[in-house]
């Protein structure tokens, strides 16, 4: 009886552990800093995007534009070393206003995904 409970516990623990890391095709944006629709008081120095799956660096990019469409990122979009689910791009100094983040990624299993969101700097 006690053995059964231990085994069940181990299986449940394993499943929980697995589900933490489980991430599948057609990447979804899990987290972004600044967050979608966020209003931030100080201008961020970079945009961070975290996805549900591992990405291919050579086929993933992110562009940040201001409200008239001018690029405000430094074109250095890159994946974190050791974490292929996180992409960052540095920003030029931002003035208060609305900015749009456009991302296009390729997951490690060759599926493409893209999306965009806006955030605001200032009150």
């Amino acid at each position, binding site marked *: 009886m006690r053995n059964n409970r231990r085994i069940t516990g181990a299986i449940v623990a394993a499943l929980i552990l*697995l589900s*933490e*890391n*489980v991430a*599948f*095709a057609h990447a*979804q944006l899990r987290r972004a800093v600044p967050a979608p629709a966020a209003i931030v008081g100080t201008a961020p120095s970079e945009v961070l995007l975290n996805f549900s799956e*591992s990405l291919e660096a050579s086929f993933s990019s992110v562009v940040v534009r201001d409200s008239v469409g001018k690029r405000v990122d430094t074109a250095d979009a890159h994946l974190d070393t050791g974490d292929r689910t996180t992409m960052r791009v540095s920003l030029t100094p931002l003035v208060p206003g609305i900015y749009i983040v456009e991302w296009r990624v390729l997951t*490690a*299993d060759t599926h493409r995904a893209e999306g965009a969101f806006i955030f605001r700097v200032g009150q």
Partner: protein
Amino acid sequence: MDDSLILVRAVHFVSTLLVSGVVLFLIFVAEPAFRKSGGDTHLPTIVRRRLAYSAWIGLTFVLISGAAWLLIATARMNDIPFAEVFSNAAVWTVLTQTDFGYDWVTRLFLAILLAAALLPVHSTRGIASKWKGLIAVSFAAGLVATLAWAGHAAAGTGFARTFHLIADGLHLIAAAAWIGALVPLAGLLAAAEHRVEESSITIAREAVLRFSTLGIVSVVTLMTTGIINTLMLVGSVTVLIGTDYGRLLLAKVVLFLVMLAIASVNRLLLTPHIIRAQSSEPLRQLRINSLIEATIGALILIIVSVLGTLPPGIQEQTAG
């Protein structure tokens, strides 16, 4: 472009599993059965030649479909028409900077190594040394298992990714050992049916028994790894019946159960007949059943070819 990708994947999966299945069958079923033939070389020579030809033809299809898959994948990854794939070193970028590319190069090497390891099969002694046989099996198993790296398991992270890749790799090897080995089994039975030597019946019986054992191990592996994969890619009954992905997976499971039913008939009804009987009639029936099983197996592989192009159902569940 979706249809051509699915077609190319289907040809690649079928030919890869066939080649690997032929090698696994040769080393684990045929050669051990030949050793029971009491020195007779007639049937062994015929079967070895057939298996060698099957492997070479299969490898040709593996290479051609593999090349086509690379080109189509490159076009899709770059979102360009197929005709433009050869410009801008697009293929080179894929080969040198993506998981898909690394996997492709690895599998090309494995295919070449396997081809080299299969050269002795043509001789009358076949692959005589046990070690050479195991080397061939390793390359064959590697060629089919590495297909996992080109699938959904590759997009995971951390421990779950490694775990998923291993489960998927074992799933593929087991599939090759069952679906892939059914065709050479049918070939051996066909060759044995028409021979008059007592030793041919002995070889056929021994081969059937050994294939049976291989089949049981494969089925258990397929079910275990299949459940793991389903948990990781589907995760719930809602997703299983509520998404295209889930329903295709269900179809695959149903076909698997049909194959299992036929295999049970082979194991429980026909195999005892083959052990006892003097005529070649049960051999003929088993050959026909094996080919029916293999056809259903091919249908399963077509479903797999489609599944890989879809987002796994679990993704749709979490989407907003």
